[in-house]
């Protein structure tokens, strides 16, 4: 057991911190730290800065820009990025389709897509969920039917996050309706400018436009855009969703949000013992979560993920939500007012409730917390 980081890892952490706080523009990081909405350009600009320094896709295979880091290094990179307010590399690119293409793609697909994906020259969207296939993803009904070498896609996807910015969409489609539902699914890469593809906004309860429906009407997709085997999409989906869940706790950003709340509302907190106790409890739980993440990354080198990694998403989102709820209470009636200057504390108060409402999604999307409990009770406890 060792409490300290090794000197090497201390230096690595310092290097990350220095890069993130000096090389990514302050105005972009302020948007993140203040909980405002990033523009498409800001996300792309930030990712390209990271990519130029080899920091956008460190977990990819090294020939495509990966760094062969240990899990601890990846953890430090991620935490420092969050702490500095640097927008994470676009998840759909860096965390989802990139690793999939690198693992399952043809040499041509890799050559064509991976560099552009790492550099955000292509903005990828995710076409998985459907109105009747959410947690039960395998129930999806969007179809792809062979037409010569091409596929003709019909159906509807939903919850497509930032689909309004998308250039391409990776899509799970049903290619065989006659077999067990998991066995008849394939993955297609689809250019979102193709005729018959339409993106329709979904307004969320915070008033924002963050997710979309994507409709496919006789959308023609070249056969070369199939990833992996025909009817082999479920394997790819599991690979992708597995990547999504391992070791991802949004600790750094939540810590920042809490520290920020303490600073802005110092006077109020100084007067109120119950608020202080609530903050202590949150800090303590965040500490336990961060230590769990560190325990997991130190332990999972080159093998199965540590079983405790399942708690990271579950507890991480709960704490994320608890901090947004705290901020609502700190803001109190100030949330009803109009904060004109977006960077002001007043505007931060005003955004408190939309942020709180928006983050209710955290325990629903990306494998709901009910799914997480099922993974723990079945997969770990064997119940």
């Amino acid at each position: 057991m060792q409490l300290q980081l090794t000197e090497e890892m201390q230096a690595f952490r310092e290097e990350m911190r220095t890069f993130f706080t000096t090389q990514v523009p302050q105005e972009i990081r302020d948007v993140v730290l203040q909980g405002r909405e990033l523009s498409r350009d800001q996300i792309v600009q930030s990712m390209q800065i990271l990519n130029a320094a080899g920091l956008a896709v460190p977990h990819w295979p090294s020939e495509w820009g990966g760094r062969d880091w240990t899990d601890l290094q990846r953890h430090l990179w991620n935490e420092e990025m969050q702490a500095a307010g640097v927008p994470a590399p676009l998840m759909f690119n860096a965390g989802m389709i990139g690793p999939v293409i690198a693992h399952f793609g043809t040499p041509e697909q890799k050559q064509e897509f991976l560099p552009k994906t790492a550099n955000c020259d292509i903005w990828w969207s995710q076409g998985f969920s459907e109105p009747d296939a959410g947690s039960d993803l395998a129930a999806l009904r969007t179809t792809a039917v062979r037409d010569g070498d091409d596929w003709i896609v019909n159906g509807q996807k939903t919850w497509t996050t930032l689909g309004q910015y998308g250039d391409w969409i990776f899509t799970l489609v049903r290619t065989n309706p006659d077999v067990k539902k998991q066995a008849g699914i394939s993955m297609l890469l689809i250019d979102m400018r193709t005729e018959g593809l339409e993106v329709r906004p979904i307004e969320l309860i915070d008033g924002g436009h963050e997710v979309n429906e994507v409709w496919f009407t006789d959308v023609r997709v070249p056969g070369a855009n199939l990833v992996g085997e025909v009817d082999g999409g479920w394997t790819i989906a599991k690979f992708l969703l597995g990547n999504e869940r391992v070791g991802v706790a949004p600790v750094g950003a939540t810590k920042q949000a809490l520290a920020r709340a303490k600073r802005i509302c110092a006077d109020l907190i100084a007067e109120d013992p119950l608020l202080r106790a609530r903050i202590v409890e949150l800090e303590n739980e965040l500490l336990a979560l961060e230590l769990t993440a560190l325990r997991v990354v130190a332990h999972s080198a080159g093998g199965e993920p540590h079983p405790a990694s399942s708690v990271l998403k579950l507890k991480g989102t709960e704490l994320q939500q608890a901090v947004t709820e705290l901020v609502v209470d700190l803001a109190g009636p100030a949330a009803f007012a109009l904060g004109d200057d977006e960077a002001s504390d007043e505007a931060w108060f005003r955004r408190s409730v939309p942020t709180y409402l928006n983050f209710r999604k955290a325990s629903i999307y990306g494998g709901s917390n009910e799914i997480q409990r099922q993974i723990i009770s079945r997969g770990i406890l064997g119940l």
Partner: protein
Amino acid sequence: MDFTYDDEQGALREAVRGLVARTYGEYENRRRTVASDPGYDERLWGQLAEMGLLGLPFGEDDGGSGATWVEAAIVLQELGRVLAPEPYLTAVVQAGGLVADVGTAEQRAELLGGLSSGERLLSFAHASRRWSPSASGVTASQDGDTWTLQGRIDAVPQGANADVLIVSAETPAGTGLFVVPGDAVERSGHATYDGGRSARVVLGGVAATPLGDAGADQTSAIAAALDRTIVLGANEALGIIEQQLVDTTAYLKSRKQFGVTLNNFQALTFRAADMYTSVELTHSLVAWATMVAASVAAGERDSEQLSDAAARVAVQLGTAGRHVGQEAIQLHGGIAMTAEYRVGAGTSRLTYLEHLAGDRGHHLNELAAVVADHGALDPLAASVLGSAPVTAEVGS
């Protein structure tokens, strides 16, 4: 002690329920209504006036209907159930209640008459530190019989649309209340997160008429108005959480995942059972507090009892409103995140109601400061705090 409605109250409930269902039974209509100014349906507001509902808690001499806060609570529950954005709570309960308590007979007749008939929208413009009844940020100056107001109020409910503002301001005596025509001030309106409307009001030396006694300290009247806003607002919240439970239950019965409807998953149905528990406990406490408010208004009980009841309701609502509002979203899943679906809007409105006139933490601290002053609570006694059973003092 009796928690049931009499026939007249039952009829009132049905009438309101029927009326608001015609406007907001389809949730899409509510969504459309809040999307454009003034953020509510003026036709429905007129119908509420015609039915005498806007004047419910006010005396007939003042142009009201001479009913009680219990009847106003019935209206609010039904408004809550359909998330009606009409400013009943802020205009009738808060601003109207203040005029009724403080105004001269003439002011009451004019303002409450206008409010009750639907001709005048009132709003309480109160700048203060976190739900304090004392004004801060607006100052009143007297020159002979003329009062002028200077300052800024950041969030006046329906402030850009209100015909009459009841403005609180610092005076030499403490906090005074003043009547100011809405169009006499600089005001910039905006939508609040719950779909309501708020405005920043800037008072650049505007002339104002004292509400009631010129120069009196109205702090305790404001405190009572805030307490009543909590209690009556909790009735609106009760309507919301009752409906969220109904919606969630219906969804669990109809939505399929993994080949079966969601009510086959015991972990979900047990959580619905816990929501039910929260709703029923809240129902009881809110009904009790509403009776306390009516009893205080009728002069049967001390105003301290209103303050205590309001604090208790705020604590309960802060717990139960979040529990039900958050679970309703979680048990629905993604669909509840969308603006098309009413569950999320309910949770948004609950959040507003919790923070309008004093939240859970604020009142928990207040109650904690005096928790040692009484024995066991006794809701059957003349005061819930006042008569600890004698047995509390024996036996050690």
